[in-house]
């Protein structure tokens, strides 16, 4: 998990190891089921075409590949991993995707929790 400032984002943050972190799983719960497939498709594209390869933690990459192998990237756990990776590699595009899919409120929540 990546550290974010928490104060303005009570719905998607949780305390862990003495710091406040975004709870990606909780964030995914806010995403309507009908939009998950489209979002996961966009996130996969951002990750695969990103020039920021070096930002991908191998454990997270393996989690994504495991879900892809099982063909369950749209599941809550799959989308959680994709979202974490996409925010690490392509934060601007990822936030843009939420807006494009009419989930601007979630993009705002993420932005609010991002380090200043």
């Amino acid at each position, binding site marked *: 998990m990546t550290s974010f400032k928490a104060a303005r984002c009570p719905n998607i943050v949780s305390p862990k190891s003495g710091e406040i972190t975004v709870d990606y799983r909780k964030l995914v719960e806010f995403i309507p089921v009908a939009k998950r497939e489209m979002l996961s498709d966009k996130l996969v594209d951002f990750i695969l075409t990103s020039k920021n390869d070096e930002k991908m933690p191998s454990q997270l990459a*393996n989690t994504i590949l495991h879900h892809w*192998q099982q063909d369950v990237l749209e599941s809550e756990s799959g989308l959680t991993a994709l979202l974490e990776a996409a925010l690490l590699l392509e934060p601007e595009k990822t936030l843009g995707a939420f807006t494009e899919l009419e989930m601007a409120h979630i993009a705002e929540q993420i932005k609010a929790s991002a380090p200043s």
Partner: protein
Amino acid sequence: MVKFGIEFVPREPYWRIIYYTVQAERGGFSNLWVTDHFNNRNVYVTLSTAAVYTNKITFGSGVTNPYMVNPVFTAQAIATLNELAAGRVVLGIGAGDKTTLESVGMEMQKPLTAVQEAVEIFRKITSGENVVYKGEVFKTAGAKFLFKPKGKIPVYVGAQGPKMLELAGKIGDGVLINACHPKDVEYAVNCVKEGVSAAGKKFNEVDVAAYTSFSVHEDIKKANKAAVPVVSFIVAGSPPQLLERHGIEVKKAEEIKEALKANDWGRAFGGVTPEMISAFSVCGTPDMCIERIAELLKSGISQFVVGSPIGANVREAINLISEKIIPHFQKA
């Protein structure tokens, strides 16, 4: 029925290649080829990861060479892979790339002999033999695995020149022909056939693959744009007789070569003409690619390998190939 293979260069991180590999396996590709150059990520680590995440695609080095790594170590890696994914592993081996070998101080000594001997040693040691071998390039004085290798592993020989193509036909279970244009592939297949008949085999016993530079997109301009960088390098590295066969001025190829040396990408890529793209890639819309592949099949190839760049967007390109191109040939 023609098989489709896909090539990846592990300059890309493993997770990207494995994502595409799983996608390709689901989309009807039967073979995965991973290139082997010391300056990219390791071929066998990449293939091992592919083995873990897939369950039916056949895979191998595309291609390794006998100089950089001793054939017994190549055999060890391939035999171990064949434990991880029994029956899905092949060895792809060729003479290697002269420039890359020279960059690490290695000489491409007797390439035909080196490949032939390496294949002999590979086959002996992977069949569990204690190998005593006195070749011109390689010698072993009793090399034997301390584990029992699993089964016979097919050997594909990568080739471009006529003598290597003939040798490939003679000793290979498969041949990887580095060519894209029907004229070049037909010429190569004829060379392979000579080797096949010299060995007393039937042509259909050998899996002959056209290993192509490929680029597909619904928009021809995007397909071309993706192909240009790869084609520029192929043109720069092509011998004059090959260029002339396609009506390409040697002078223009020299200009591209100079620009590439100077890292002047704009000039290098700007020098690539539609004729060069046609000669050195299979490029275009899905229908255009189908037409070209159908032409190539007339020469007798049994596997078509899509290699770099595959498309402007690799994921989309694999989907296009899986949804439009492979089904076309399955129906036929």
